[in-house]
């Protein structure tokens, strides 16, 4: 991976020098040496079983699937593939734990388990961070500084609600729903597990969690933490597998509540599948957020916000700022600054602490990104990437910017879920709002302007569940997150996040 860093560095130098400077002594090239986080802090087992009724065990039919390191294509482990019988057993274990142990347990006792899990996540944070980067492909800097700390914080936050539900604004004695079936995506594997488990458990439900097929490992390590925290058997169950496992879980009659984070397409299938069953459902789906930059934006920070918005986590973010809506009068300046800034992005080994852009999670996702990017070129948008050498093995895509994009282009409408930014322009605040809202999605939006009244006006007008003003991609367990329209319904985080798991 050092090769990629060096090439990118050299390209960055060339770009910097080409920016135009007068003759003078040539500046020395300073390359950052590889700074890998040690893989040895975590032990990756050759095989992983399901976690049902407090114990790890193989699938009933013995089937397994491989999980792979997307940066190298190296197989990491064989993981049990849960079949219908396993889902059955997990739901039964969850039901039994709900009725006999967890449901009757006072909130203050439930809280203690959650605090213990939170504390363990903090203490074993390095293991979790390395494992996450290995399995997912995201830079260690992100798993270490964002994913793992936020996951622990979610457990801490909801632990504190467990014995205060009567003050949460849902009435004097809100009851849990029962067994929650929860299906999570591959982009923030541990964090999504925390977002699902923490509020459900705090509210008194028991859980059956289905991690994504390409990223099962940190969920299983979390299961180990639950086991070691003494969490009663069956309160949390993890059934690893592919789409069929998720479908079996979602349609299982023993599940009272379904929570899904993933694509809008699958979200619609799930909503159709639970139709008429009486199961409560919350969905957190896709997005095509507008990141709106006005002519009076703090430009330097806006550029950072644009970069963060679309290249954080390789753009594998439902709330990514994938459409840059820049006021036409400053469009050239902003795009030029953006290009310069992108030359300092470092793409390569996810375990290198200096890596900014990691691997794409799977070959399927890479194919999707490539297809849409080609469509963008075919539609007539101009494509640009900073000079960037991709490693030979693994799934990689360079940060990419399309300019000359309009609303009718596929790359302005469809969620690419990769490090690809579409740049559109607008003239007036009204036009910005119209374009921003002109999408079936409605998850998030960004506003960059120095004018307070404009921020509040836009925040009111934007049909999005999360509005970031002069910042982007900020998350907190106390802050409700979720979408309007086809980005889903229900909120995760904050007091509002409890509503999904209570019978209210």
């Amino acid at each position, binding site marked *: 991976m050092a090769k990629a860093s060096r090439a990118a560095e050299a390209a960055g130098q060339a770009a910097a020098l080409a920016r135009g400077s007068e003759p003078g002594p040539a500046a020395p090239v300073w390359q950052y040496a590889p700074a890998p986080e040690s893989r040895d802090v975590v032990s990756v087992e050759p095989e992983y079983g399901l976690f049902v009724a407090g114990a790890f065990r193989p699938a009933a039919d013995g089937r397994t699937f491989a999980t792979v390191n997307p940066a190298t294509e190296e197989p990491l482990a064989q993981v049990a593939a849960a079949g219908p019988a396993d889902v059955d057993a997990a739901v039964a274990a969850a039901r039994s734990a709900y009725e006999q142990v967890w449901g009757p347990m006072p909130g203050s006792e439930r809280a203690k388990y959650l605090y213990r899990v939170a504390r363990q996540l903090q203490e074993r944070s390095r293991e979790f961070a390395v494992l996450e980067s290995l399995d997912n492909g995201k830079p260690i800097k992100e798993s270490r500084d964002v994913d793992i700390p936020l996951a622990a914080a979610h457990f801490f936050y909801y632990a504190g609600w467990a014995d205060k539900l009567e003050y949460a604004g849902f009435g004097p004695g809100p009851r849990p729903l029962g067994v929650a079936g929860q299906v999570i995506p591959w982009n923030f594997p541990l964090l999504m597990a925390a977002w699902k488990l923490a509020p459900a458990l705090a509210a008194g439900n028991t859980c059956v969690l289905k991690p994504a097929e390409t990223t099962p490992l940190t969920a299983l390590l979390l299961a180990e933490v639950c086991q070691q925290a003494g969490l009663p058997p069956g309160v949390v169950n993890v059934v690893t597998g592919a789409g069929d496992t998720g479908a079996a879980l979602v349609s299982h009659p023993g599940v009272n509540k379904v929570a899904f984070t993933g694509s809008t397409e699958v979200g619609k299938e799930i909503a159709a599948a*639970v*139709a008429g069953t009486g199961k409560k459902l919350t969905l957190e789906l896709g997005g095509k957020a507008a990141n709106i930059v006005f002519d009076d934006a703090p430009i330097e920070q806006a550029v950072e916000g644009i970069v963060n918005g679309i290249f954080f986590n390789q753009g594998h973010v439902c709330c990514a700022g994938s459409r840059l809506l820049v006021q036409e009068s400053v469009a050239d300046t902003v795009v030029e600054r953006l290009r310069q800034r992108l030359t300092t992005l470092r793409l390569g080994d996810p375990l290198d602490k200096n890596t900014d852009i990691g691997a794409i999670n799977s070959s399927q996702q890479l194919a999707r990104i490539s297809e849409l990017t080609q469509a963008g070129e075919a539609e007539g948008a101009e494509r640009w990437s900073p000079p960037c050498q991709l490693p030979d093995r693994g799934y990689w895509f360079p940060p990419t910017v399309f300019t000359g994009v309009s609303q009718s282009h596929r790359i302005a409408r469809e969620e690419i879920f990769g490090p690809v930014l579409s740049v559109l322009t607008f003239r007036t605040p009204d036009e910005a709002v119209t374009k921003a809202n002109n999408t079936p999605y409605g998850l998030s939006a960004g506003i960059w302007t120095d004018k307070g009244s404009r921020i509040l006006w836009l925040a009111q007008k934007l049909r999005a569940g*999360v509005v*970031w003003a002069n*910042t982007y991609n900020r998350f907190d367990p106390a802050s*409700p997150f979720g979408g309007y329209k086809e980005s889903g319904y229900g909120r995760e985080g904050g007091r509002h996040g409890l509503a999904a798991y209570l019978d209210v």
Partner: protein
Amino acid sequence: MRKTYKLYIGGAFPRSESGRSYPVHASDGTLLAYAAQGSRKDARDAVVAARKAFGSWSGATAYNRGQILYRVAEMLEGRAAQFAAEVSATEGTADAEAEVAAAIDRWVWYAGWSDKVAQVAGAANPVAGPYFNFSVPEPAGVVAIIAPAESSLLGLVSVIAPVIVTGNTAVVVASERQPLPAVSLAEVLATSDLPAGVVNVLTGRPAELAPVLAGHMDVNAIDLTGIDPAGRQALEQLAAGNIKRVFYRNEPWATMPGPQRLLSFLEIKTVWHPAGT
């Protein structure tokens, strides 16, 4: 000659574009009147009207919406006797006056929530960083409501008022067998300050109209309270087509409700802003 009551769409009273109507009978079987039998195109038009009204209704101040709803309650009070007669004939209720009084009280209760929901459903969230972070509830948009089959006035106002007081606009499918109080309510709304299109009332067959609304891509939420549980699945499947928010709750209408209906048609929007020099 028995009167044929029309639909209420966009502040006007058109006939069904299908030209159809159907007989409405009293609880004792006597023919009371005819009601328009709304069609899918009427439903389409109603959604258009509701969408058109949404911008300014949701943009009005909460105070303003509350004032309008209070005024509607006063008008209902003025017509209490008429409503009592209608309810009595329609439902055969012994104490129609009590039901009408309860319906008016219910409407007033919801009107008072207008400028309070945000304080109950909103929050300033204490995030771990130098940011001001707040959550506010916003109306979801156009809400389709299948009114209860029984409880022609009390049930009706109990499903409409909580939807519109927060800024949503509504397309209501009245009870098939007991539509007349809905039509009378529409007449009151038409002469009130409630802007055209905020409430639209379709009479006809829910079995015909509900699927149209459930599958309509420009309807944001649907209240299936008036649908028999056996019929929900098909409608929920249709609703999945645009991730419509689906709600239903059957409750004894005479009991004071909690805030669930109010809160169920809201979207929570969370805003972050850095706090720095």
